[in-house]
């Protein structure tokens, strides 16, 4: 390369014109920028693709089944000779999973977060955080299999007074999903509590508050929107969990029931088990997968939007 005088700002103009304005992007630079733009915009394409792939078959589905019947019907029997498409039983199944998951994940996740953020010495924190991350990285199939072989028999032993029937249980599935989302709930609430300014704690200590008063009455309320966001993200994750539910609650019993000892089908379990069977394209059963998928997508979308808003509000307050 020949040596030349570097004259920034004149690459576009003549050698004597010195402009203080930034030069236009070079050709190569423009191409790179365009490529990067394509990469970033791909996510919009993916979302559009998801919406289209859910909506198109759903339209066909709702021409044969009325939306009111779909949303209020209490019998889910898509494969019967006289099929019935009332989605409530599998929605209730999903909500049961969410309920039991949150019963586990809220207390355990929140207390771990308070401990890690307010009490734990640096060394303990540094040791425990990666372990929780490992739990987050364990595949859900593995957790589901563990729950089916160990947790279900264990919980049965501990509660012989409950009317256990069959190998599957929606309650145990919920508890397992709860274990699964502990790291999520804990790390998001931990982040929220750690970004509460030190001055709030110092102020409380100066007024004579004890450590737990500072943690529970000052830090927790100050971080509440972040903590709630953690719960909402947990709910969203529990709604969408598939493998644990398939293994622990079973794939095929869509009954409308609130009994946690029964194996009840959830929305994700329906999609997962039906799509793996031999279902030919164009039948109403095939389309029903997409209708249930659309409902699932909507439920998690609402949860995610709420969570993103809460986290953003929280950041605005303290940043």
């Amino acid at each position, binding site marked *: 390369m020949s040596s030349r005088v570097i004259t920034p700002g004149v690459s576009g103009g003549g050698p004597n014109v010195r402009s203080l304005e930034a030069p236009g992007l070079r050709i190569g630079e423009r191409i790179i920028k365009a490529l990067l733009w394509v990469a970033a915009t791909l996510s919009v394409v993916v979302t559009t693709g998801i919406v289209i*792939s859910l909506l198109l078959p759903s339209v066909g589905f709702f021409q044969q089944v009325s939306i009111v019947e779909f949303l209020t019907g209490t019998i889910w029997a898509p494969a019967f000779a006289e099929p019935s498409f009332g989605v409530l039983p599998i929605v209730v199944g999903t909500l049961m999973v969410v309920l039991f998951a949150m019963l586990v994940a809220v207390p355990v996740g929140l*207390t771990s977060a308070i401990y890690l953020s307010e009490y734990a010495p640096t060394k303990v924190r540094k040791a425990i955080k990666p372990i929780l991350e490992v739990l987050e990285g364990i595949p859900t199939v593995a957790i589901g299999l563990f729950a089916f072989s160990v947790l279900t028999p264990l919980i049965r032993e501990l509660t012989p007074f409950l009317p256990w029937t069959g190998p599957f249980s929606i309650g145990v599935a919920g508890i397992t999903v709860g274990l699964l989302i502990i790291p999520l709930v804990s790390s998001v609430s931990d982040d929220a509590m750690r970004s509460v300014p030190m001055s709030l704690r110092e102020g409380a200590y100066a007024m004579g508050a004890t450590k737990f008063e500072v943690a529970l009455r000052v830090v927790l309320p100050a971080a509440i929107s972040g903590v709630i966001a953690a719960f909402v993200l947990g709910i969203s994750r529990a709604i969408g969990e598939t493998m644990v539910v398939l293994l622990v609650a079973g794939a095929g019993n869509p009954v409308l029931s609130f009994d946690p000892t029964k194996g009840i089908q959830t929305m994700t379990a329906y999609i997962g088990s039906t799509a793996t069977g031999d279902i030919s394209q164009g039948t109403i059963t095939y389309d029903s997968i997409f209708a249930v998928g659309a409902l699932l997508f909507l439920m998690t979308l609402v949860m995610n939007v709420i969570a993103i808003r809460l986290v953003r509000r929280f950041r605005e307050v303290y940043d």
Partner: protein
Amino acid sequence: MADDSGYSSRVAMPPRTRTAVGGAREVTEAMLSTGDRKKKVRGLIIYSILLLGLTTALVSIAAMITWAFIAGGPRLSLDLFTNVPSVVTPENAGYRTAILGTLYVIGGVILLIVPLGVGAAIYLEEFANPRNPFNRFVDLNIQNLAGVPSIVFGILGLAFIVRGPLSWGFVAAAGSLTLALLVLPTVILASREAIRAVPSSIRDGSLALGATVWQAVSKQVLPAAFPGVLTGVILAVARAIGEAAPLLLVGAVTFVTFDPQFFEGGYSTLPTMIYSYAKRPQEELQVLAAAGVVIMLVLLILINSVAIYLRNRFERTW
């Protein structure tokens, strides 16, 4: 992010202030401890409840790993890697084709997510105007996409990749693309975080010396952000390895007895194979499934540890 949570180390205080605060705290604590006994007991109770919560989480991890080794123990041998799957002769069945399938699928995932994920992150952090409504929409969209259930990506894969516009059929490439789209938001978010952590003085210095934006990004910002980006990619790959639900919809549930190909023929992966074994009643297949879990756990804990090590080793506070 500051990596220690000690009371005084978290705020940068000059030594004298630190002593003063420490002293004040000691006086306050001394007064309180002599004063209110009830409060002290309550503090202790709460402390133990907090510890109990954390212990629950840690014990369940330990229990799961222990169970996998005990339940899968009888089948842990090299045959697991070399024998093909079978339900007829479960005592000779293994994971050979499933492991190969996972390798194919994950290879494709890595090839797709590295350029697309890092490219998107660079665009959003370095080139995009954050006030532009379209860019804000893209940003929000990525955050939302990160929370979409994995099985919905399976539906997308079924409708657009296996059938519909691409019509690839139930092949490993379809599984690869589906999983890549699933973990892409994770890679973008982690890479953005890493790029954002590079101080703007590095960027500005480079630009002031006459570098173009791309030169500044590729020669200065990206090398500095590399460890963070790499960690994000590794964690995303780990997630893709363990993911089974979307693959149920794009064909990875067949008992493949031949080595899979990328664009042709059936395939299965390690997690879907475990699921296929696990849902069958035979005792031997249950043991086989647990042995598969051991393979996957060892692999994933290894990968996660590498990611965590990299992050701790190269984490820099500027």
